[in-house]
């Protein structure tokens, strides 16, 4: 137990997370600032999640409330979050999922955000383990890039790594339950409200956590309904705002600028602004090397058929192009590669074009500083 004026509550929502919730609790308690209370809001798990949470909290000697909900047909994320916050202590609340492992300073970094800012939504990078539950790890979405940009926006905080003062939650009226039942925007709704109130969205590099990936993480879930509700409710156009924000964030990150943590000096971060063991995902790796694209071209060149050309086109198309600066070499070569794959020419002609692209890309890659990155990325991709 820590002695702080303002208490810190770790709140976790869960559904069928028996295998991971113990790890989550243990990592939080073993960090530099253990929580004063843990609240788990479980949406009617039938796999023993509730008992497991209680067991580990007791074992580790941390006060814990497990709210045992009855399942009412669908996952009620906002209700779970509201229940968590309602049962939290009157202080800083860190909201997370029960399949996340906290870094050694995650809770303290969140606490520091709220010590420095009267009103804030705190967040940090969210990494995904690539092998088992210990690493190496990579990042998804833009959480790492966002973290190193000074100015926050409502779309920066992610629900698994989301902190606020309980009084802010009360003032905003809680998480809007109209976003339940459909994917996406649930936490952005809250942070948009918080911004309108005057709170800042603050991300700290040491407030990171690791998410134990499940199959939906790397997939593409349809958020269109909730984006529509969000746009209608707040009179905003989420897609445009996010794109404009990324246009500021990505060049900043690619230029190598990194933000210091509020807990500066506690932990050394690597050149990516991430802890040791980080494997940059392709969209970040491209800032240092074109190898990932060259490998895609190699793969297609090894067997140039309409199917492989189409597969290459799909791969380039499905990349989040917003995370590659338009004035970068990577963007230029990505656009070239995509154009070739979608040119509609014969396989023979596409093969010729690819070889030409390959030669130019390889030459350009030699000028870039990223051979190590390429290796790491290759290892990550293999995992």
């Amino acid at each position: 137990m820590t002695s702080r004026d303002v208490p810190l509550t770790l709140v976790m929502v869960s559904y069928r997370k028996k295998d991971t919730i113990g790890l989550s609790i243990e990592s939080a308690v073993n960090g530099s600032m253990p929580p004063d209370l843990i609240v788990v809001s479980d949406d009617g798990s039938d796999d023993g999640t509730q008992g497991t949470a209680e067991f580990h909290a007791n074992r580790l000697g941390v006060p814990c409330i497990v709210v045992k909900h009855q399942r009412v047909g669908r996952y009620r994320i906002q209700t779970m979050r509201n229940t968590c916050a309602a049962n939290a202590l009157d202080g800083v609340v860190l909201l997370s999922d029960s399949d996340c492992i906290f870094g050694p300073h995650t809770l303290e970094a969140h606490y520091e955000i709220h010590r420095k800012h009267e009103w804030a939504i705190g967040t940090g990078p969210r990494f995904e383990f690539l092998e088992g539950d210990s690493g190496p790890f990579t990042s998804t979405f833009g959480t790492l890039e966002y973290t190193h940009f000074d100015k926050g926006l409502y779309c920066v905080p992610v629900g698994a790594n989301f902190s606020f003062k309980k009084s802010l939650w009360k003032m905003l009226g809680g998480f809007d339950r109209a976003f339940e039942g459909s994917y996406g925007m649930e936490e952005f709704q809250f942070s948009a409200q918080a911004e309108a109130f005057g709170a800042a969205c603050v991300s700290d590099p040491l407030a990171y956590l690791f998410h134990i990936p499940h199959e939906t993480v790397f997939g593409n879930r349809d958020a269109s309904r909730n984006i529509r509700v969000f746009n209608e409710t707040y009179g905003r156009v989420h897609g445009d705002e996010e794109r404009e924000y990324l246009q500021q964030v990505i060049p900043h990150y690619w230029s190598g600028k990194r933000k210091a943590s509020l807990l500066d000096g506690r932990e050394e971060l690597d050149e990516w602004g991430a802890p040791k063991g980080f494997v940059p995902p392709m969209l970040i790796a491209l800032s240092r090397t074109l190898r990932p694209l060259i490998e895609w071209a190699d793969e297609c060149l090894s067997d140039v058929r309409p199917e492989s050309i189409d597969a290459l086109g799909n791969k380039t198309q499905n990349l989040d192009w917003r995370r590659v600066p338009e004035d970068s070499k990577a963007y230029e070569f990505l656009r070239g590669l995509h154009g070739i794959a979608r040119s509609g020419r014969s396989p023979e002609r596409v093969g010729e074009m690819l070889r030409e692209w390959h030669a130019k890309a390889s030459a350009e890659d030699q000028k870039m500083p990223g051979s190590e990155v390429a290796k790491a990325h290759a290892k990550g991709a293999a995992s």
Partner: protein
Amino acid sequence: MKIAIVSYEYDPFPGGGIATYHNAAVRILAEAGHEVHVVTNSALHGREEEHYKQAVHEAPIDGPGSLTIHRLHYFDSSREVPRNAQFLDVCPDRYAGRAHLYGACPSNIAASQAAAYVEHLHRQQGLDVVECPEFFAEAFYMLRARRSGRSASFPPICIHGHISSRFAFSANLHAWEVGYYPHRQKMLREEYCVQEADALLTPSHALMRRYEDLFGAALPKIRRTISYYLELPPAAEKPPEPLRGLNYMVCVGRIEPRKGSDLAMEAFARLAPKFDDLHLVFLGKEMWHHGEAVDDVIDAHVPREYRDRVVRLGNVPRDEALAAGKFASVFLHPAPWDNYPCAVLEAMGVGAACVVSDQGGHSEMVKDGVSGLHFPVGDAEALARCAERMLTDTEFAKTAREAAVRRAQAITEPNALTQQKLELVDAMLEQEKTMVDVQAVQTRTKAIETVDRLPGGGVVLVDAGGFDKWTLGSTLSSLERELESSPNYELVVLVDADHSKVAELEIPENLRRVTTIDEPVWQACGDDDYFVYMHAGVRFDLGRLRDVVCQLRDARVNCGSVAWLRPPDAAQFPYPPDFGWQDQCVVDTVIPPVFAVKASALASVTSLSGMFKANARLSILMALASAENGIRFQHTGDVLGDTYRDLPRMDHDTQWRTLGVLDMRGHLPREWTMVGSLPELPMAEVATQPGQAQPAQAASSNGSSQVREKARVEVREPADYEQLQQIYREHMALKNHRAVKALRKLGVFGAVRKMLPGSKKLLGDG
């Protein structure tokens, strides 16, 4: 002292007396050495200064204290709440237009946000007292919290009476405003604030008397009458340009019935023939009744030949208004009743010759025959006589003007007023020592092992009728924790008299269970015990059942208590903060699945027989408690937990059963036959009238059918209509069964039903 003033009526709000009072009071208190916080709205009202745009601003003051302004975004300059404003955990605008829901009403949003902010401020700063006007009810959710076991979350709250919306609307004969649904809720909230405050402060004895007449013993024990502060800017040297050189009488304030503007016109009509150069001047916004122009009012009261001597200048800067009063031959305030009009106080401050009616706070300011003149309220002839005296008796007018200045200075002497205020605060703090609930630890900073004890003793009855074991189980496990430290409470499960399904519920052996046939559990309770009824499926957040019970203990006005819960989805907007049986019985009203009352409130209900279905039991018990004890049900102003079943709704079946019981017990007026009979007005297709456009004929055949479709009588069936039909069919089939007929013929049907176990199921209910 750390004092918070909570009101949207503060600089740069351009409105009337409340803002004028706040602007002066906060500065005087801060300059007297106090730490003053103002929690107000962020609307700019056309002002562009940077400090108005800051969320928190430290205002410069000339003295040892401090003045901090906190601006929250309740609504814009047009009093429009943002479309996305949240109230508790829903966004009210998703559910219905603003005329149909109180949720997005500016007053409700302001009160809800102010409560959350002041709670935070109190935790940070340790406020001594909050002062808030009754008008607009911004203290409502703070007071609800204090009266629901969360007294430690807020400092004691002083409600400052200015004028309630009901008084103001009624005085202006604004029938629409009084009847408009969100206003009706707001007026109730204002009246709640007046009654449940820790202290009531009014600037006039007139307003205090009105509240005492209305609410009597329900008012706070600490009541004071302390004048407004008066801060006069230097008056302009000359009146506004159009008035220079004129001999005129002036009325300052909105042109509206409650200011007596029409009476001033009548008096002027009597004086105009005698004084050829006399003018009547109005300064202020025109706010006459809907559909009636001020021109029409003047036409009605002032003969044509004098109308051009009635001058209306609208709103003018404050210094010009003061100058207009100072240089006027007579300053009129003929209001039928007014609380404590700043316009009169300020006019006295600049030495105006005041003639005021003998009702309301202005008659307390002006000493009749000394610092001005009184006339009997509503008497235009008397008003004219008084005005004439001021116009003709120059010696008296001169001494009255001088006396008015002295009088204004005497009653608004800032040190004396501050001293009186501090005495009031001291009394509140003294009272707080006896009132604060030592167990009010909702402001939790440490994890706790057990929940706080519920006050007193009583019974918690969980109605399991029609629910499954999972739903019941979640409620029982939640209550187990809620009641573990309250040995004076018994947890009882109510099950249907039909025992065949009870085993499926898997009720723990140690819990008492009763059926609808057994004597109701509240009958065995003491008079001071509390009774909590809830549907299975309710789960309280840790320790929040206590809020529901504490409200019964702490509210000054006898009430019932309900909980705002999170239902399975956000499809339905929950219930209002206050409602009685009359509101509850409206079809489609959402009914809270949990309520609490003092057990004695249900003393006359000796049986649950006939209360078929859990929803009907809930509705009937609430309606009876409300009707028989004259109480309203109040939610605690916070979300207290979850419910895993849809919120119960007043469908026709439930309504009919509830109305039936109310009628049988003599509460429902027998003349009320239409109440809730049809969801929509029946409409029949009618022939097109001569000369009318003929849409049905002009439209295509498809269009005609649409018109007919629209015109068709729409009668909505109850939600359980199919089930009722099925029960009826089964009943008739049994009745006509040969065996039943034979038993009836033999006269042993009743005996067989009683003797054979399960025969009820076989033979029906009889």
